[in-house]
C-alpha cells in the first residue's frame, strides 16, 4: 500500500460544503462543492470526501490529513443555542460579567440597549478565597463554604461552568482547586478556567471569554463526537484538525477544551487564502475583502503575513483570544437604500437579507437594494445571474428606485442608481481605510483582493476611492476559504501577563516566563506528535509606554533575553509606535504587559508547485449596455473560464465567473495569470 498522499481541506458553510484537496505526489489540486447537511454537518463532510474520491480517484486509505473549517461554534453563539451555564467568581465579583465596561455606543438613545448576558445573576456564584495583584494568596479557600457553593452550582442545573477568579492570571492555584473539587462532585460538568482560556489581565474580558468557552464546550464536544462516529463509519482514519480563529489548526481533543478559539474558523480560511495568494503573486501587502449579501469583512495581509489581534468581538460579546484581524461592517448586496427623516440618502446597514431579499428577487422586497441598483445599471445580467436559474424583476427594481429615491430627492434614474453605489462604495472604502489607519498603514501601498459573492462589482471602484492601483481576483472565489485552509499549520497561542519595566532588572523574570511558555508550547506539540524539525516557536511581547492602556505586539529576537534583546525590543516598539501614532517618546519608560508564545507545528507542504491553469471554455465575447464611469456603454462581456493565461482585457468590461461578476471600469487592464488568478491594474 502506498503512503497516504491526499491532504483535504473542508469548509462547511450554511449552504455548501466546499472541499479542496491536493495530491502531494503529483501536486494536482481539485475542488468541489456539495450540499451542507444541517442536521449533521459531519455527514456532508464525509459525503464530500466520498464524492471527491469517486470523481478524482483516491480511496480513504490515501488520505493523509483532513483540515476542517467549521461555523458550529459561531452559529451556536449567533443563535444563542447554548446550554445552561454557571459562573464561579471571587466572592463579591459575581456581577462583573453583567457590569461589563459601561460605555454605550448610541449616546443619544433613551431606550436601554439590548444586552446579552450569557449567565443570569441567579447562576453566578462567589467562591470564598482571594488572590492578590502579584499572585499572592490573600485568603485561602474555605473548603466547607466551597462545598456549599458547589451544591448550589449543581442545583442550578448548569451543564457547563466557567471559573474566573480575580487575578487568576497571576496565580491559577485557586481556580484549579475549585475546578478539581467541582469535577469530583460532578464529573459530567464541562468546566473552563480563566487561567487556561485567557490568562491575561482585565477581569471582564477574561470572564466573558471564559464563559463563552464553557458554554461552547458541550456544543463542540457533541459535534466532535458525531464527526468521529461518521469518520469511523466511512473508514477514514487520517488525523483531523479544526481551523481556529488565528488561522492555525488544532487537534479535535484540544478544540473540545478551547472551543472559543473556533469562533472565526470560517472567515480565517479566507484570510489564509489571501495570505497564500499574496505570497504566490509576490504582492505582499494586500487587503482581503469578502462581500456577501449583508456584510463586508476586511482583513489585512502586511509583509506577506496575516495580521492578528489579541481580542475581538462576536455579536457584541467580547472574545479575548488571538484571532485574525477582521473588521466587519453591515454592507452588502442586500443593503437597503432609503431617504432618512432629515432628507438624506442612506444606504444600509439595514439589509433585505435573503427574505424578502432585493426587490428584483420578487419575493416581497419593496425597498431598493445594492443588488437592485447593480441590475438597473446593467452590471448584473438577469439572464446569467446565479447561472440563470432565477428570473430577476428589473421593472420592479426600477419602480422601487423611482418611488423611494428618485422622486423624494429629485434625481434622474441614472444619478440615483449610481449615487447609491457611490455611497456604498465610500462606506466600503472607509472600512478599509479604518482597518489600515489603526495600524498607521496607507491604502496606496496595498493591493485589494476581492472574494465573496457580491464583491466583484465593487472592488475596483472601491480601490479607486482609496487610491489603490491593483486589484486581485482569485481564480475560484467560491471555494477560496477551503483553498486557504489547505495551507494551515498547527498553532498554539500561549501567553502570560506580568507588568514589568522593559529594563535589565526584569531579565530574570522575563526569562523565567519565556522558559515556562516554551516548555508548555513544546508539550502541546509533543501531544500533536510533531517532529522536532517541523516546530517553530516564536515569542512576542505586548509593550506600551508606562501607563498606556494599549499594547503593541512586538516580535522578540530568538534565544535567551539579554540586555541587547531589550534594546532591540525598545527600538522595534518605538518604530511601531511612530508608524501607528505619528510620535514616539524616547524619554518615557516602556513596560511589558504580556509575553506571548506561538508554537507552530508545520503540517502542509507549502512549496508544492502551483497548479497550472487551462481555459475550459471556448472564447466568446458578448456585449450589453452597462452604466460605468458615469455613462452607458455597450460593454464587452467575457467568460472567465474562456480567458487564456496571459490574455488582457481592457476596461470597461464585464467578466462573468460561475458565481460572481466582475466589473472592470475604463482605464483598468485585467490580466489572466498563469495560475488562473486575475490581476487588474490601473493605467497611469
Amino acid at each position, binding site marked *: 500500500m502506498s503512503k497516504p498522499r491526499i491532504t483535504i481541506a473542508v469548509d462547511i458553510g450554511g449552504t455548501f460544503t466546499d472541499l479542496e484537496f491536493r495530491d502531494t505526489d503529483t501536486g494536482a489540486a481539485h475542488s468541489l462543492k456539495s450540499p451542507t447537511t444541517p442536521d449533521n454537518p459531519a455527514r456532508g463532510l464525509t459525503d464530500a470526501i466520498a464524492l471527491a474520491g469517486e470523481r478524482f480517484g483516491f480511496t480513504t486509505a490515501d488520505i493523509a490529513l483532513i483540515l476542517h473549517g467549521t461555523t458550529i461554534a459561531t452559529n451556536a453563539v449567533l443563535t444563542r443555542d447554548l446550554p445552561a451555564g454557571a459562573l464561579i467568581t471571587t466572592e*463579591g*465579583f459575581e*456581577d*462583573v460579567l*453583567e*457590569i461589563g*465596561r*459601561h*460605555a*454605550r*455606543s448610541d*449616546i*443619544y*438613545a*433613551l*431606550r*436601554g*440597549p439590548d*444586552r446579552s448576558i450569557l449567565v*443570569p*445573576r441567579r447562576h453566578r456564584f462567589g467562591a470564598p478565597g*482571594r488572590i*492578590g*495583584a502579584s499572585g499572592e494568596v490573600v485568603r485561602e479557600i474555605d473548603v466547607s463554604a466551597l462545598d456549599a457553593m458547589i451544591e448550589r452550582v449543581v442545583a442550578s442545573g448548569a451543564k457547563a461552568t466557567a471559573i474566573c477568579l*480575580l*487575578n487568576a492570571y497571576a496565580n491559577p492555584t485557586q481556580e484549579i482547586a475549585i475546578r478539581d473539587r467541582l469535577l469530583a462532585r460532578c464529573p459530567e460538568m464541562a468546566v473552563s478556567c480563566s487561567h487556561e482560556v485567557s490568562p491575561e*489581565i*482585565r*477581569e471582564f*474580558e477574561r470572564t466573558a471569554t471564559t464563559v463563552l468557552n464553557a458554554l461552547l464546550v458541550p456544543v463542540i464536544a457533541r459535534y466532535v463526537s458525531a464527526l468521529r462516529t461518521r469518520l469511523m463509519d466511512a473508514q477514514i482514519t487520517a488525523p483531523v484538525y479544526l481551523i481556529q480563529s488565528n488561522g492555525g489548526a488544532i487537534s479535535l481533543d484540544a478544540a473540545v477544551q478551547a472551543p472559543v478559539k473556533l469562533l472565526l474558523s470560517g472567515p480565517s480560511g479566507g484570510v489564509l487564502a489571501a495570505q497564500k495568494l499574496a505570497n504566490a503573486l509576490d504582492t505582499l501587502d494586500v487587503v482581503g475583502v469578502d462581500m456577501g449579501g449583508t456584510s463586508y469583512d476586511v482583513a489585512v495581509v502586511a509583509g506577506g503575513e496575516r495580521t492578528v489581534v489579541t481580542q475581538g468581538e462576536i455579536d457584541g460579546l467580547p472574545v479575548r483570544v488571538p484571532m485574525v484581524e477582521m473588521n466587519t461592517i453591515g454592507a452588502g448586496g442586500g443593503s437597503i437604500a432609503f431617504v*432618512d*427623516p*432629515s*432628507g*438624506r*440618502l442612506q*444606504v444600509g446597514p439595514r439589509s433585505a437579507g435573503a427574505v424578502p431579499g432585493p426587490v428584483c428577487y420578487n419575493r416581497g422586497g419593496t425597498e431598493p437594494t445594492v443588488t437592485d441598483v447593480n441590475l438597473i445599471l446593467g452590471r448584473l445580467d438577469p439572464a446569467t445571474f446565479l447561472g440563470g436559474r432565477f428570473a430577476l424583476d428589473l421593472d420592479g427594481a426600477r419602480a422601487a428606485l423611482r418611488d423611494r429615491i428618485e422622486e423624494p*430627492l429629485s*434625481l434622474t434614474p441614472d*444619478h440615483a442608481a*449610481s*449615487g447609491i453605489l*457611490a*455611497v456604498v462604495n*465610500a*462606506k466600503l472604502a*472607509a472600512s478599509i*481605510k*479604518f482597518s489600515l*489607519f*489603526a495600524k498607521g498603514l496607507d491604502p496606496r501601498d496595498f493591493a485589494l483582493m476581492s472574494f465573496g459573492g457580491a464583491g466583484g462589482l465593487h472592488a475596483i471602484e472601491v480601490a479607486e476611492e482609496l487610491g489603490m492601483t491593483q486589484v486581485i481576483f482569485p481564480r475560484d472565489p467560491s471555494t477560496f476559504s477551503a483553498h486557504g485552509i489547505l495551507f494551515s499549520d498547527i498553532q498554539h497561542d500561549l501567553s502570560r501577563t506580568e507588568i514589568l519595566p522593559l529594563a535589565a532588572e526584569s531579565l530574570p523574570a522575563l526569562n523565567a516566563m519565556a522558559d515556562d511558555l516554551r516548555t508548555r508550547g513544546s508539550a502541546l506539540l509533543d501531544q500533536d506528535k510533531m517532529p522536532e524539525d517541523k516546530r517553530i516557536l516564536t515569542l512576542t511581547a505586548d509593550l506600551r509606554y508606562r*501607563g*498606556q*492602556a*494599549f499594547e503593541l505586539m512586538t516580535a522578540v529576537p530568538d534565544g535567551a533575553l539579554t540586555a541587547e534583546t531589550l534594546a532591540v525590543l525598545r527600538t522595534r516598539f518605538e518604530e511601531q509606535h511612530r508608524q501607528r*501614532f*505619528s*510620535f514616539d*517618546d524616547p524619554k*518615557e519608560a516602556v513596560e511589558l504587559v504580556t509575553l506571548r508564545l506561538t508554537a507552530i507545528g508545520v503540517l502542509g507542504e507549502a512549496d508544492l508547485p502551483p497548479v497550472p491553469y487551462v481555459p475550459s471554455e471556448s472564447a466568446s465575447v458578448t456585449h450589453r449596455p452597462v452604466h460605468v464611469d458615469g455613462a452607458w456603454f455597450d460593454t464587452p462581456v467575457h467568460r472567465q473560464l474562456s480567458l487564456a493565461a496571459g490574455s488582457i482585457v481592457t476596461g470597461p468590461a464585464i467578466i462573468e465567473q460561475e458565481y460572481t461578476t466582475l466589473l472592470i471600469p475604463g482605464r483598468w487592464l485585467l490580466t489572466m495569470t498563469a495560475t488562473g488568478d486575475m490581476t487588474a491594474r490601473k493605467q497611469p
Partner: protein
Amino acid sequence: MMRPDPVLLEIVSAALVSVAEEMSVTVWRTSRSTTVRELLDYSTAVFDAKGRNVAQAARMPVHLNSMELCLHHIAAHHIPLDEWRDGEVIVTNDPYCGGQHLPDFIAFKPVFKDGQRIAITCVLIHHVDVGGGAAGGYNAKAVEVFQEGLRLPPVRIVRDGKMQEDLFATILQNVREPETFRGDFLSQIAALDVGARAMLRLADRYGVDALDEIGAALLDHAEHEMRNALEALPDGTYIAEDFVDGDGIEEGAKRISVALTIKGSDIALDFTGTAAQAKGPINATMATTTSAVYYAVIAACGVTATVNAGCYRPITVTAPEGSLVNANFPAPVSMRMLPGHKIATAVLRAFAQVLPDRIPASYYGTTFNHAVNIRRADGRRQVYFDSELGGWGAHPERDGPNGLAAGFHNGQNTPIEMIEALFPLRFTSYGLVPGSGGAGRMRGGLGIVREWEFLAESGLLNSAFDAFDSLPYGLDGGQPGRGGTLSVVRDGVTTALAAKTIGHALRPGDIVRMETPGGGGHGDPGLRDAAAVAEDKADGYV
C-alpha cells in the same frame, strides 16, 4: 436650504465623521492616564472654517455639545479667528472663557490650505490633575475657582508647529502628576494633527468650496430634522424641576427649575427659578448648562442624522446670571457634572409631559468621581482617580439596564485588576446593589457597589458625589431609584461620609464602600408582569 448633490453630501459627511473617529482612536490608544485610557473621558470633533461643529466622534455628549460655545467665546473675547495661524494649537481650561471645569483642557488646531483656513480640529481631554486644593481637581471645600487649580486662558501652546516649552513647563510645574499630564497632552496634540492631515486630504479630494458647501448643508439637514420633530409636538409650556444635593458647605438640596416652551419648530428652555449659585463647587457655567440642554433636546427629538451644530439652532437657553446654572466668576465649578446631569434630567422630565411614550424615568443622574491622594511607605506619592455610574431609568417599554453609562456623559470603568496592579488598593466587592432600582411596571436599573481596602501608609479620600438625597425620579407612578452612599469601615465600625468629602484620612486596613444610585421606575409597580417579578426575585435584583 442649500442643496448640494445628495450623493456627495453623504460621502463627505461619512468622511467627516471618520476624521473625528480617527482622532478619537489616536487619543484612546496613546494616552497615559486611567482617566483617559480606561474611563475614556475625552472627545474629538471637527469644525468648518467658520468654527461650526460639523462632525463628532460618538463619545461624551457633555464635551461635544460645549466645544462650539468654547470656540466662539475664544474668538469673540480672546483670539479672533483671523488671528489663528497655521501651525498653532490654542488651548484653554478656563470655565470663564467658555470651558466647564479646570481638568478639561480644550485644544483647537486651525487647518490651512494655500494660506486659507479650511477647518478646525478639536480634542478635549479630562486631565488627571490640575493642581489646586485637592488631587484630581475636585476640591470640595473650594469657594473660588482659584482654589481649584491652574487656570489657563486661551493661549497658543504650539506655534509654528513647535510646542512652547516654557509655557508647557509652567503647566507641568503646577500639576501633581506631570509625567501623566505630559503623556496625555502629547496624545491630545497628536490627535489634532491626525485630524488636520485627514481634513487636508478631504480638501484635496473634494475642493475647499465643496467642503464648505457640504458642511453648511449638513448643518441645515440636522436643523431640519430637529425642527420636524419639534413641529410634531403640541405648542405649550411644560414646567419641571430636579434637585442636586447640598454643596458640602451649606445644607439643603438646590432646585433646578425649567420651563420648556415649544412654539412651532422652536424650543426655549428658561431656568428662571433655579437656586442661586452655591458657595461650593457645584455650579455650572453656561457651557455646561447649554451642553446639558442640547443633549436632552437632541435625545428627546430622536435625531437620527449626524449630530452637529445644526441641531442647536432651534434651541434657546435662558439662565439667570448668578444662579446655579449660570454662575458668576469666580464661583467654583469643579463638580459641574452634578448640576449638569440634573439639568438634563429636568429637561427630560418636562419632555415626558409631551412625549410620555418615549421618555424614561431618571437615570442615576450623577457622576461618582473620587480620588485618593496616596502616600506609600517609601514616600512615593500617587493619585488614584476613578469614577462610577449607576442604573438607567426604566423606559415605558423596558426595564432600565443595570450599571451602564447613560445620559449626559459616557465612559468606561477601569478594570479592578488594572487598579490593583497599579495602586495599593484591594477590592472586596464590585457588583450591583439589589433593590436600588426604582419599582415600577418597568423597573429602574440597579446601582453599583464598589468596596475596597486601603493598603498604603496613608491616604486622603476626596469625593464629588451627588444624589444621596435628591433621588432619580420615577415617572407615571414609578418609584424613585435608591440614592447613593459613601462610608468607611475602620476596626469594625462603619462611619457614613458626606457625598462631598474632602481629605478624609485613610489608614491601612480601612475599607471604603460606595453605592451609586439606581434608576427610577416607570408605571405603577402593582402592574408589573408577574413573571418579571419572579425573575427579579430569582436573580436577587430586588
